[in-house]
């Protein structure tokens, strides 16, 4: 395809692919520009060196550093340039970070759409209600279950969200023997465990094969069968099949060009050889994951936008969200259980949402809580071994280390909990352009300030403690739970809030920029608050909602 496109999409992950698919299915000419390479199923291997010990699926940190500002204990801000690693990149390739997700899929709940109205303001946080409700998004969650493929089984529990369909379109993936033990222990404590929905196909669908069961190996590794519902396997491959969608990998968009009226007319990008191109289109969609989306808008100054595209309000990059919470683990020695837990492959797939809203006099007035997922520790054995080399302040080595590896890897399993609570939007969590550090191509890099609200820790700790009770009841040894204010770099949202008031939001309720009539942002950036679940399902659902709106209203 050559010439002018109807739509140019920057980025190819979960926020981009639904738009590409729907527009291409409607016969629009779509071009997807992706800065990374185009790996297919065959390229993705369960290779721990690739996924977890070297920067294989993220950009070379020396070429594309970021600047991370972290709050120090004395209240000042530390500054770190990530040119040796430790940046906030995820999944630099066609399909984006959805290739590397674990696919723990939860919907937001009705309460998440109006936290401020329900619980009132929180001092020091910029909590804002969404301009849409759960009812507006519910049909799109249901659609994602079919289009992307979400497997699970509906189990009633006190905080279960309403659904328009009785159950998931795909049955749950196979379960590890420990799941039944978790159910028994949780029910004994009056908790309501349910099967974690997964964006994983238990059996083949179309050109995608079913799951090959690698246990806790999904996260950080690409899927070799197409069972994981990545944007690439589930949506982009189908968009291509329409004949109306083209994907250009190794296409690094450096800025979007706008005219004197404030309309976008072209995307400027560099190809693999560094040659500069301009690509014209009628409509532009940005979906580069929250941090890089904000950066691209801030880099895209124009006659009407001296402070960055769609940034007349100064809101671009503000109220960046990660996911708050806590975590924990317990060791299950095989010899301590009557059930044979030596099972490699099936998933644990258990979650708890008993405290999605915390109504506990011990912690004060009703407040928003969150989700607890029970999961395998990542299957990577090098990672397991590396966790054994420290004891107190010293290193463990020699035969002592080898006996430790036997005890912790051969003779038992490590089970983990992840507690997700809202990462409250705060002034000190935002993206700006760094005034000094530039990437290899001379462009200012994203500077990420990672401040967090103390409420994240309080709620995270509350949830983690509840999970700790369960891990002990399960018979876990070395039960460890904690809350953390550190941002999980793989869970990003916010930075371009949607809303009805252009003074305090970047996007309108349909994720079109208030100030730019032919610009949409469809990754997680639109979220004013994040909910207490991983973001991907919501990003998929919203992007389908927006694409449908584009077509229905004649925006394209």
């Amino acid at each position: 395809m050559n010439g002018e496109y109807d739509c140019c999409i920057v980025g190819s992950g979960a926020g981009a692919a639904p738009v590409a698919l729907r527009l291409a299915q409607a016969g629009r000419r779509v071009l997807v520009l992706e800065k990374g390479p185009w790996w297919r199923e065959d390229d993705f291997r369960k290779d721990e060196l690739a996924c977890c010990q070297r920067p294989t699926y993220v950009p070379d940190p020396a070429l594309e550093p970021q600047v991370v500002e972290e709050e120090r204990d004395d209240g000042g801000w530390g500054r770190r340039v990530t040119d040796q690693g430790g940046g906030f990149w995820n999944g630099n390739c066609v399909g984006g970070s959805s290739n590397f997700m674990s696919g723990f899929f939860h919907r937001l709940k009705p309460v998440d759409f109006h936290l401020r109205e329900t619980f009132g303001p929180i001092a020091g946080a910029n909590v804002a209600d969404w301009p849409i409700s759960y009812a507006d998004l519910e049909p799109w969650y249901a659609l994602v279950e079919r289009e992307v493929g979400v497997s699970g089984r509906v189990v009633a529990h006190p905080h279960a969200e309403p659904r328009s369909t009785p159950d998931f379109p795909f049955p749950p993936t196979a379960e590890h023997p420990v799941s039944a033990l978790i159910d028994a222990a949780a029910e004994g404590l009056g908790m309501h465990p349910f099967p974690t929905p997964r964006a994983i196909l238990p059996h083949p669908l179309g050109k995608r094969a079913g799951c090959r069961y690698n246990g806790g190996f999904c996260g950080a590794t690409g899927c070799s069968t197409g069972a994981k519902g990545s944007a690439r396997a589930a949506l982009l491959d189908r968009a291509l099949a329409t004949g109306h969608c083209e994907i250009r990998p190794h296409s690094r968009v450096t800025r979007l060009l706008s005219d004197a009226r404030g309309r976008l007319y072209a995307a400027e990008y560099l190809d693999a050889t560094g040659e500069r191109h301009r690509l014209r289109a009628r409509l532009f969609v940005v979906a580069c994951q929250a941090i890089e989306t904000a950066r691209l808008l801030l880099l895209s100054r124009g006659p009407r936008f001296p402070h960055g595209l769609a940034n007349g309000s100064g809101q671009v990059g503000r109220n960046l969200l990660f996911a708050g919470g806590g975590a924990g683990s317990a060791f299950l020695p095989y010899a301590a259980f009557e059930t044979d837990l030596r099972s490699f492959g099936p998933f644990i797939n258990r979650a708890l949402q008993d405290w999605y809203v915390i109504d506990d006099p011990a912690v004060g007035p009703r407040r928003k809580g969150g989700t607890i997922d029970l999961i395998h520790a990542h299957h990577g054995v090098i990672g397991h071994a590396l966790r054994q080399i420290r004891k107190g302040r010293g290193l463990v080595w020699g035969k002592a280390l080898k006996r430790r590896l036997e005890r912790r890897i051969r003779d038992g399993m490590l089970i983990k909990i992840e507690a997700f609570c809202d990462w409250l939007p705060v002034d000190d969590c935002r993206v700006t352009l760094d005034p000094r550090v530039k990437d290899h191509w001379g462009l200012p890099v994203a500077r990420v300030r990672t401040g967090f609200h103390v409420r994240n820790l309080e709620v995270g700790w509350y949830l983690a403690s509840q999970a700790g009770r369960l891990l002990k009841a399960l018979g876990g040894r070395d039960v460890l739970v904690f809350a953390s204010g550190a941002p999980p770099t793989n869970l990003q949202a916010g930075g371009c809030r949607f809303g009805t008031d252009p003074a305090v939001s970047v996007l309108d309720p349909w994720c079109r920029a208030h100030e730019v009539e032919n610009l949409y942002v469809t990754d997680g950036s639109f979220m004013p608050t994040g909910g207490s679940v991983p973001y991907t399902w919501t990003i998929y659902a919203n992007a389908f909602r927006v694409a449908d709106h584009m077509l229905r209203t004649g925006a394209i």
Partner: protein
Amino acid sequence: MKAWSRRRFLAAGAFALSGPALAEALAARTGLGVTDWRIVDAVQAHLLPSEPDAPGAREANALLWLAFVLEDPKVPAELKTLLRAGPARLARHSRTHGGTEFLHLDEAGRERILRSFEEDPEGRRWLQEILGFTLEALLGDPVYGVNPGGRAWKWLGWRPGFRRPDAETRYFLL
């Protein structure tokens, strides 16, 4: 081109060598001296010793793996500098604190010197990194020339996932 040279390096048949001969072969191509490599070999074997039923650093081809790491563009330059500086630093430390060459020490002497080297922040960091890359060699996929036959996986009852990398999908070729 770089990828090709790394591939050749891993396929160069150096696995047939061991001990002093391997140290000489590595010295010829890495810029570190024969003594440096002999020290690294001794440290790796001390940190992860060989046992009849449980492989150690030498069975894992850990020395060759470290030589590869020093050429790997995906390993940060700062870390490579630290890795390269370690052997000479340990040699000096051994002379100062043990009164003799590290390589002349017996097992107990090496343990004593390494524990005291661990008190030095630079020494500790080097030991931690050497141990980390040794564990990579122990437990990495055999396609990288380490962990031959997946012996360490069998020892620990660990199973690799589907699909494993092959020669064409090693990370530095992606």
